[in-house]
């Protein structure tokens, strides 16, 4: 039988664990945005080597499952003498993986801009730096916003994978709780609710940002 009191009492430990889920996805996307911007710049650069590097980066990180990347980071880093807390390793791995997707989102948004946008700026003698800052990036950001929010929501869900390296995020916390209370149904429904609430909030944030930047 489904027990409402058990269901409600499952939330408290999971809220605690939700901090890690949030931390991993938000810091992960933040890192992904920064590194993704650099990779995108490399992919669009005039240097053949940089473009080659970006292509390699994107195809490796998109081609290997995040779970495998996490395990690789977990077992490989100590071997090469890097000892960092599991949390740091997890955030960095998630962020690096995300950078591959973010760079492609941005590259797509930038090349989708009509050529006339930069031509009009070039024709009045604008500096390429100003053209990037004032004309290309604001528009590319707006175009990419829905895809970026989508990526953030994917990260919230993908953060359940970091349980394999021992971080007590929502999924792992609910497994642990189910194992001690023998009430898996209540616990996992509570976990589902928490993921849903987080993602509905991010989706609302996305709509707000879209509304703010739409004209």
């Amino acid at each position, binding site marked *: 039988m489904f027990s409402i009191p058990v269901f409600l009492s499952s939330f408290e430990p999971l809220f605690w664990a939700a901090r890690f889920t949030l931390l991993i996805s938000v810091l992960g996307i933040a890192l992904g945005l920064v590194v993704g911007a650099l990779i995108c710049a490399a992919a669009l650069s005039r240097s053949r080597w940089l473009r080659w590097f970006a292509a390699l980066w994107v195809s490796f990180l998109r081609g290997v499952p995040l779970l495998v990347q996490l395990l690789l980071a977990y077992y490989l880093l100590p071997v090469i003498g890097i000892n960092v807390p599991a949390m740091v390793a997890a955030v960095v791995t998630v962020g690096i993986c995300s950078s591959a997707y973010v760079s492609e989102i941005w590259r797509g948004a930038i090349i989708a801009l009509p050529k006339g946008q930069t031509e*009009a700026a070039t*024709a*009045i003698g604008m500096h390429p730096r100003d053209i990037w800052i004032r004309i290309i990036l604001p528009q590319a950001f707006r175009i990419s916003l829905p895809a970026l929010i989508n990526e953030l929501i994917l990260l919230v869900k993908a953060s359940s994978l970091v349980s394999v390296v021992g971080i007590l995020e929502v999924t792992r916390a609910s497994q642990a709780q189910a194992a001690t209370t023998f009430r898996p149904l209540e616990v996992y429904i509570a976990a589902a609710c928490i993921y849903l609430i987080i993602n509905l909030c991010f989706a609302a944030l996305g709509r707000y940002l879209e509304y703010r930047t739409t*004209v």
Partner: protein
Amino acid sequence: MVEASSVEIRNVNKFYGPFQALKDVSLSIPPGKVSCLIGPSGSGKSTLLRCINFLEEYDSGEIAIDGQLIGYVSAGGRRMSSRRLREMRRSIGMVFQQFNLWPHMTALQNVCEGLIRVRGLTKSEAEARATDALKKVGLSDKMANHPSRLSGGQQQRVAIARAIAMEPRLMLFDEPTSALDPELVGEVLSVMKTLAAEGMTMVVVTHEMGFAAHVADQVAFMEKGELVGVDAPSRILNHPEDPRIQAFLRTYHERNSF
């Protein structure tokens, strides 16, 4: 009124891979006059116009604005520095068929942008000058609108305001009315006529033969990358000697009479 530029185009060739888009084109654009470029689709009109501000690189020949070669340090020589090129472009306005307004900025911001970033004006100076430019094209009541909230004719007038606010000495127009609904063409042409009357040097690629006939001081006809002829509009449009121009005008009149 600032002084108007002249343009001297000499033996210009332009290739896209093996395809030759401009074949030994020479043309004099006198200062303060309106020169129209006409010709069939694909004849190289836009390409020639875009070579004048070096938006398109020409491969050989010379294009000089007030005697200053654009794009190259010397004829057949090295590319000019991008800084010098930007300086030259400051005094050349361009208006595009698709308007190319920046959609994330209001009409006023579209006009201010170049004044602030390129001319180095302060925001309030730029806004004052942009307001004048928008008033001149009849849009003082639409300054706060984004392009998506403007009709095609209004957008094109903002684009003209954006160009003239920079106080150019030469204006290039690439089919400025071709993307407009017929009832909106007149408002754009009338702004252009005002500019012409003020003595602006204008080079206009157009399919509007009425504009060419009544406003142009000279009309040049292009076909297959060649400049076939250039003459006063009355002569070239009414009594063309070259059979290619005759054929073009015949199809034009057939299409526009019903």
